[in-house]
C-alpha cells in the first residue's frame, strides 16, 4: 500500500494572501448557488476550490464521484442561523422563516454542501468536537483511506466570525478555512510528516477553533513542499 500523502492543499484566511471574505465568495466560486449559504460554508467551499486548483468560477458537473469522501470540521458554522430562526419565530411566527434556510438548521450543512457543490459521493462526515474537531477530522480522513472506503479524502475545516459565534466563543475568533486532499500516492507531501511538522508551527494568524489544526497542517504541507527537490 502506498503511503498517505497530501496531493492538494489550501489555506483560506480572509485578509491574507488575497483570500476573499465569505460575502465575496462569488469572486472565486461564481455567483450561482451561494444564496443563503452561511459564511463558514462559503469559506469551506473556497478552501476546497483552491485546494483542487480550480479556475475562477469553474464548476464540477456530471455524476457524483463515489470514491471521494469529505471529512469536515466546524463548530460554530450554523449557530447564528439557529439563533436567528428562533428570533424570527418569536417576532413574526414560523411562517416568516424562509424554507431556503431549512438546510442550515442541520449541523451538517457544511459537509453536505461541499459534497453537493463538488460532486463528492463518498462517505461524508461532519466533525463537531470542539477544539479537537480538526484533529479528529485529520484522523478520520486517514482512516477512510486505510479502510478502503475512499480513494481520495477532502479534509476541510472552517469557522465563521459573526456576532453569535463570537459571543458563544467568548474569545477572539478568526474566520478562516483550510483544506487537505489526502490519497494513497507516491506523489505529494507525506501526511504523517506534515502532521509532525505542524506541531512546530507558530499559530500567528489567530484562533480558528475547529479549523485550527487543519490550517496548521496545511501550512506545514506548504513549507515541506517548498523544501522538496523539484
Amino acid at each position, binding site marked *: 500500500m502506498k503511503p498517505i500523502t497530501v496531493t492538494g492543499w489550501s489555506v483560506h484566511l480572509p485578509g491574507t494572501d488575497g483570500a476573499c471574505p465569505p460575502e465575496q465568495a462569488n469572486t472565486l466560486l461564481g455567483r450561482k448557488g451561494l444564496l443563503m449559504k452561511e459564511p463558514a460554508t462559503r469559506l469551506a467551499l473556497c478552501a476546497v476550490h483552491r485546494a483542487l486548483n480550480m479556475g475562477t468560477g469553474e464548476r464540477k458537473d456530471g455524476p*457524483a464521484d463515489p470514491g471521494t469522501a469529505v471529512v469536515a470540521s466546524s463548530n*460554530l458554522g450554523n449557530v447564528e442561523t439557529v439563533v436567528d430562526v428562533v428570533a424570527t419565530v418569536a417576532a413574526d411566527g*414560523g411562517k416568516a422563516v424562509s424554507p431556503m*434556510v431549512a438546510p442550515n*438548521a442541520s449541523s451538517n450543512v457544511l459537509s453536505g454542501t461541499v459534497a453537493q457543490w463538488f460532486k463528492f459521493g463518498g462517505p461524508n462526515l461532519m466533525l*463537531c468536537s470542539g477544539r479537537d474537531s480538526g484533529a479528529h477530522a485529520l484522523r478520520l480522513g486517514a482512516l477512510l483511506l486505510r479502510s478502503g472506503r475512499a480513494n481520495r479524502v477532502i479534509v476541510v475545516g472552517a469557522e465563521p466570525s459573526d456576532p453569535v459565534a463570537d459571543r*458563544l466563543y467568548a474569545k477572539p475568533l478568526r474566520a478562516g478555512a483550510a483544506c487537505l486532499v489526502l490519497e494513497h500516492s507516491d506523489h505529494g507531501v507525506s501526511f504523517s510528516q506534515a502532521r509532525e511538522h505542524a506541531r512546530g508551527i507558530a499559530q500567528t494568524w489567530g484562533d480558528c477553533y475547529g479549523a485550527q489544526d487543519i490550517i496548521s497542517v496545511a501550512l506545514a504541507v506548504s513549507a515541506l513542499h517548498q523544501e522538496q527537490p523539484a
Partner: protein
Amino acid sequence: MAPWARQSSGGGVVAALIAASSLLTCLGDGERTFASLLKGITGVGPLRHPVPGPINVNAGYHIPGRSMDGYAGDLLSGCVTQALADARLDLAEHRVVAIVGTGLRELAAVEQGNLTDPERLHFGQSVPGIAEVMTIANACSAGGHALALAQDMVETGEADAVVVGAADVMTASMLAMIGRVAEQPSDQVRPFDKDRPGVLLGEGAAAVVVVGENWAGPKLAKLLYTGLSCDAFHETAPDINGICRAIDEAYARSGRHPRDTDLVLAHGTGTALNDPTECEALRRSVIAYGGNPLITGIKGAVGHMSGGAALANVDVALRCMSGGEVPAVAGLREVLPEGADLNIVKDAPATHAPKLIQLNAFGFGGVNAVTLLESA
C-alpha cells in the same frame, strides 16, 4: 463472495461484534421500548419543547418527566454507563475511543441562552471514563456513520473497542423548519402510510459497544458492515442512486446476499419524499436480487430520534433476533401505493427470528448509512 469483500489475515471476511447495546426513548429503556413496540403503543404526545411563537408543530415524542432545559448529553451518559457495564469492558485494559452521532448537538441550549461554554456544544463531557470522544453531526444518519467508523477503527487496530453513542433532543429551529414545510400539523409519524402527515421529533439516546472478532466477552450480534454514501444531489431531498449505493456497498463488502435478508428496519420517516424513495430503493437493491424481507420501522412509536435513529434500530434489531418477534409499524393505517408489493409488517407483530437484518438511516445533506447485522 463479492470480489472486493474484505479479507482478514486469516483469509476469512473480518467482522466486528456488538458486545452491548443500551437505549433510551420516550417509551423507556430498550426492554420497555421493545415491549411497547410489540403492543403497538406509541409515545407521541403534545409538544412540550418550548417554542417562542406559532410553528405549525404541536406533537412530539418526549421522554416523560425530562426537563426541557436539560442537555442531550445527560441522556447519553446514562446509556454509555449501562452499555459499558453490560459489555464488561475494562477501560483501563483496552484502548477505547467514543464516537457520538448527533443531529442537533446541544443547540437547544444555545437557543435557550443556557450554553456559555462552546466545549459543551459537543459530547466530550458526556461519555464517562473515555478521554477521546469524537462528535459527528451527521444529521439523521449520524449513529449509522458512527457505527461504520467504529468498525473501521476496530478492524484496522486503531482501537480495541469503540463506544458508539448517539443523543438528540429537539431544537426550536428544527421544529420551525418541520412546521414550515408541513401542510397541516402532523398528529403522529405514520411510516409507509398512504396519507402520512409528516415527521415529528423524538428525544432519546443510545450507546453500543463495538469490539473485534476476538472479543471474549458478551456477543449480541455480528456487525457485518455499514455502507456509507453521500447523494451529492440535494440538501434535503433523498436520492435513490445515493441510497442504493450505500445498500449495495453494505452487501458487497460483507459478502452477504440480499436474498438472505430476513428483515429490514427501515428509515421510514413518514414524510412525502422518504417513504416512496425508500420503497423503490429496497425494490432495486434487495427485492430485485431475490430478497423478500419483512420490513418494519419504529418512528411511529418513538418519533424521529435524529442522530439516535440508527442506534435505536440496532437495539430493536437485537431484540427481534433474540425474541423471535418483529413489531408492526405503529401508526400505519393503509400502506402507500409505492409499497403495496412489499412485505411491510402491519397491525400485529410477525413471528419470526431474523438472522440477517438490514438497518437504514438517511439524513439531511444526502448522507446515507446502511448497516447489516447478523446473529452471533
